[in-house]
């Protein structure tokens, strides 16, 4: 009879938030995989009720310190729809620029400090810097430029204060943005170098017929706008999202876990999904480098997500430069007027980690009556577990430490944001007591 074996990661590292992983094996057969998101719940949807419309972007930003802009964007758009407010094309463009800043900051952090160490055999970006100082310094500077963009547009990088329903409290300063151009140009070249670096990594051989889901817009790579599409042919307006996707509550988790209906199947959101579904919309330079990076797109190997992030870094820098170059007049007024009325509105935007859906109901008293937020990591959680079920049999020949490291590497493909999913991970590999003894070298 095959020995039972358990792998466990009690506290996942280099992910945002707190989580654990538990894997139980009977011989080489995976009996149970559990991504345990134990981060304490913070109940945003609960306390948003009774708050004012204009407070929402400031409050939901605090769901995540790494992607606050995504929350501010989805919330602002959803509330504008609830109130019937249209924003000007200038504000629409500036919102894209804010998103460029967040993608740059978040992707550069993940690529250099959190994920590259897995491919190069280091336990952190800090250790990586000891041997590859230039590369890590490049990553840090790329990240810093993203943060500087956010500071100019939003007042500060973490929890910007200038994003509001209807637009911006103050129009972004033209001079300061223009002064950032040389840095943005440096960042564009640095992203191209980043792509060369990561595309040459050694990738595990992996293929999965993922159900990819992202926004898609005919004319642009998706940040704030588009229909929700999937690789199996779903194409819906965001208003129909809840008819096709639902959240389930798993016992092991303080996060909700999304499934695609009617089959209740898992799906994948994030950079690899966007690249899969929106390759045609990449801006020209990003497209050219993606074509020539040595990886055949679309890829079904989620270990390529780090390459997808590097391509999106090029796209974000490329687009930021274009927007800043053309920014010659500060919009006035800086925001559409806020006229309150009861209503319901929903919207999705593309956070660095994937689709982020918000729905709000504004009540008769003009306060928030209902709020619903579906973060990317809850949507990916089922797929992370599905990947692990497929991956674990390949690492069972390794000792516990090596096997769990590999599993963590796979989890980092998703750049999971556990604070967003309300919560992060700890990995347990349950090999059973006997098995564990037998497996020790």
């Amino acid at each position, binding site marked *: 009879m095959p020995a039972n074996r358990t792998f466990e990661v009690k*506290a*996942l*590292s*280099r*992910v*945002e*938030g*707190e989580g654990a992983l538990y894997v139980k094996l009977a011989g080489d057969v995976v009996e149970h995989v559990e991504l345990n998101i134990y981060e*304490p*719940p*913070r*109940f*945003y*949807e*609960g*306390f948003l*009720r009774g*708050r*004012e419309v204009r*407070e929402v972007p*400031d*409050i939901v930003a*605090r*769901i*995540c*310190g*790494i992607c*606050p802009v995504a929350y501010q964007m989805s919330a602002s758009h959803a509330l504008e729809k609830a109130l019937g407010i249209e924003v000007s094309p200038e504000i629409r463009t500036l919102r894209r620029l804010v998103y460029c800043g967040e993608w740059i900051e978040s992707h550069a952090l993940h690529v250099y*400090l959190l994920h590259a160490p897995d491919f190069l055999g280091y336990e*952190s*970006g*800090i*250790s990586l*810097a000891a041997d590859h100082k230039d590369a890590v*310094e490049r990553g*840090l*500077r790329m*990240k*810093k430029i993203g*943060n500087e963009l956010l500071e100019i547009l939003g*007042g*500060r*990088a*973490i*929890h910007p*204060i200038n994003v*509001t329903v209807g637009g*911006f*409290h*103050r129009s972004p300063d033209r001079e300061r943005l223009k002064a950032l151009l040389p840095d943005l140009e440096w960042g564009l070249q640095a992203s191209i170098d980043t792509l060369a670096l990561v595309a040459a990594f050694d990738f595990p051989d992996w293929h999965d017929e993922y159900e990819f889901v992202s926004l898609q817009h005919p004319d642009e790579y998706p940040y704030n706008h588009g229909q929700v599409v999937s690789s199996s042919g779903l194409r819906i307006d965001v208003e129909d999202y809840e008819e096709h996707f639902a959240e389930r*509550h*798993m*016992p092991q*988790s*303080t996060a*909700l876990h999304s499934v695609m209906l009617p089959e209740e199947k898992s799906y994948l959101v994030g950079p690899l999904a966007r690249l899969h579904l929106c390759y045609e919309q990449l801006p020209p330079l990003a497209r050219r480098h993606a074509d020539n990076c040595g990886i055949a797109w679309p890829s079904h190997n989620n270990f390529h997500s780090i390459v997808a992030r590097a391509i999106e870094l090029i796209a974000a820098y490329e687009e930021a430069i274009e927007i800043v170059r053309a920014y010659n007049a500060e919009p006035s007024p800086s925001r559409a007027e806020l006229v309150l009325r009861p209503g319901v509105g929903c919207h999705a935007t593309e956070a660095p980690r994937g689709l982020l859906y918000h729905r709000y109901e504004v009540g008769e008293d003009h306060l928030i009556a209902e709020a619903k937020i579906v973060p990317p990591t809850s949507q990916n959680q089922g797929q992370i577990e599905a990947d692990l079920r497929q991956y674990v049999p390949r690492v069972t020949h390794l000792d516990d430490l090596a096997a769990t*490291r590999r599993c*963590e590497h796979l989890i980092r493909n998703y750049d999971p944001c556990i*604070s967003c999913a*309300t919560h992060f991970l700890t990995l347990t590999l349950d090999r059973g007591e006997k098995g564990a003894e037998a497996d020790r070298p």
Partner: protein
Amino acid sequence: MAAKPKLAVFKFASCDGCQLSLLDAEDELLAVAGAVEIAYFLEARTQTVDGPYDVGIVEGSVTTEHDRQRIRDVRRQCKYLVSIGACATAGGIQALRNWAAVDEFISHVYARPDYISTLATSTPIAEHVTVDFELRGCPINKYQLVELIASLLKGRKPRVPEYSVCVECKRRGTVCVAVAQGVACLGPVTQAGCGAICPSYNRECFGCYGPKEQPNPTSLAAHYAEAGSDKMHLVRLLRNFNAHAPAFRDASDLVESGAASGDATEAP
């Protein structure tokens, strides 16, 4: 060579934004990593070194029974304990549960409330253990964090201002939004540290850095109420990321109950 001081970063209920501030200090990060031993910092590194630690940095608030135990353990392991951010110093935005029935929040967000174990309150670290220094803000200011680490290494007291956001506004020459636009602004009672960014972006301060030394938010609110602000708007303004900080908490309760009096000693 003398051993480097061991630094540990612990997370409780939070958004990670405050610990991210350390990684956001891009120009200083590698220098800090060289000057101290980053012994425990899960968001940044896999390798961990067991305590005791010379300096423990705590982000987040206490919201579960497990965390109530864990913070005591963390305290025992750290020679010098610093709490960073509004979550750790005041309970954070999640302290809004302190005014509500948590059961109601749980069933509202989660389909299966029986899977969730949580306390009825979100409380700051200092309500559970002795804290040696508190760094305010939602998020903290990364330069203050770097200053804090640098001063700890040198064994001196960190230089962090305790005056109000108003003072920062005046220094940058920002026109007072309360006076010019007639909006209720928490600048007069909020501790400086953010650089008074909100008024410089044409909007009110909403109290990210919590109450300054000896504030009088009740009289400030009374002043705004007299000038025409909606009472419940003022209550909500005080109940943001530092809602559970005693000065803001008590003022919001007084205003809500209608007991706030009209002496306007804190008028901007």
